[in-house]
């Protein structure tokens, strides 16, 4: 299913400039830095000149991230096609000179990817509306995986049960309030008479314990990374 045609790329802005700094505590938008391949404007210029290395660099930098974002939001189905469509939109916009601020290439890519996700969901919802009587049980994306992946995941959940069973009732309640009931950290700390440091420590200990158990029992088995990264290099 191709989505490239659904998004008029000339309408895609280079992202909202005011948003990045608005959230307290959130990292500011990464600016161009010497670590970047050669700076976004140069990459853009090379692509516009028709330099194939420019296109290759664009793909090298963004393909994994685009794949990761799309897979996380939509699941692994037709992932290569979706990555390809997204890359195509970005490349065409650059070639046609529609990227007005080359230094904002990253924001532009993010906007394109988000629109691709929204367009995909809209398509699926529309399809579902039209075929409601036919496919009640169908899903946007089947992330259940193959039997082996399902078995690995069940083991992971069992490991987490082990972690939860191995801590005090109070600590368990704190974790459940945060992760299951999604209560704000401030409320949990106030209710349970905890400092922020104690709260963070409890979470990091649980993560460390889960990680250690996982490494011991599920060594070498990575569940969703398989689908996110496996075909990343061979798509283009």
């Amino acid at each position: 299913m191709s989505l490239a045609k659904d998004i008029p790329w000339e309408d895609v802005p280079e992202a909202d400039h005011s948003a990045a700094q608005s959230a307290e505590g959130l990292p500011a938008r990464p600016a161009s830095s010497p670590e970047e391949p050669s700076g976004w404007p140069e990459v853009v210029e090379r692509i516009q000149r028709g330099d194939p290395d420019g296109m290759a660099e664009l793909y090298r930098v963004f393909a994994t991230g685009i794949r990761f974002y799309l897979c996380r939001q939509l699941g692994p189905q037709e992932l290569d096609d979706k990555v390809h469509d997204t890359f195509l939109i970005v490349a065409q916009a650059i070639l046609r000179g529609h990227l007005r601020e080359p230094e904002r290439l990253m924001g532009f890519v993010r906007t394109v990817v988000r629109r691709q996700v929204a367009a995909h969901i809209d398509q699926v919802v529309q399809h579902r509306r039209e075929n409601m009587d036919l496919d009640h049980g169908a899903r946007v994306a089947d992330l259940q995986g193959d039997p082996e992946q399902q078995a690995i995941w069940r083991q992971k959940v069992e490991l987490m049960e082990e972690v939860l069973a191995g801590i005090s009732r109070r600590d368990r309640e704190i974790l459940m309030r945060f992760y299951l009931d999604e209560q704000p950290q401030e409320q949990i700390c106030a209710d349970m008479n905890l400092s922020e440091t104690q709260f963070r420590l409890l979470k990091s200990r649980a993560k460390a314990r889960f990680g250690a158990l996982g490494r011991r029992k599920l060594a070498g088995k990575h569940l969703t990374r398989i689908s996110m990264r496996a075909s990343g290099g061979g798509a283009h």
Partner: protein
Amino acid sequence: MKATFGPHVPEDILERYALGQIPDEDSVGVEEHLLVCEDCQDRLQTTDEFVLAMRQAAMKMVNQPRSRFERFTAMLAGFRRGWLPVYAAGFAVAALAVVIVSTMRPPDRLGEPQLVALRSIRGEDPAGISRALAGKPLVLRLDLTGIEALDAYRVEIVNARGDRVWDSMARPEGNTLATPVGTALKAGRHWVRLYAQLLRQQLLREYGLTVE
């Protein structure tokens, strides 16, 4: 070689992002960094797995029936900590307050949540779109008929532009899912999306909601 750019996303921010607690308009810096930083992609992946495993394991524990002995010892522990008399006194004060208020003036309905029943829509039939009042507390009731039965679902509200304005997890009762909305919605068309996966990866159904 992995590509990395700029400072990495702090752990707590990454966790909030994984939990869907960072509003779309504030996620620019995080998402732009994630697009190019494989280290942070890996960390987010690990965090996603941890959160999802935690939720599933916690839910299994919550749903496990407690034995009589456990309930009894829990009650005893509460009594030992001296909370039982506190609860009793609290209930008595609350009950008295309710009686006094109810005899003094008619009930004020301004702050009461409005219950909105949502039906999944067919085509663009406006009759299928539920309505609610802007700026008022809201409790959504979703009809789950025809949807796979799960222990919990994720409910997300997006505005007409597709920006997420609220989301939460909710547990069903039979064929219905009732969930209070933790934010007052502005006027306009909204979509309520029901997901199977706790990390919003499996969209099951969408409901229309017009806020006026």
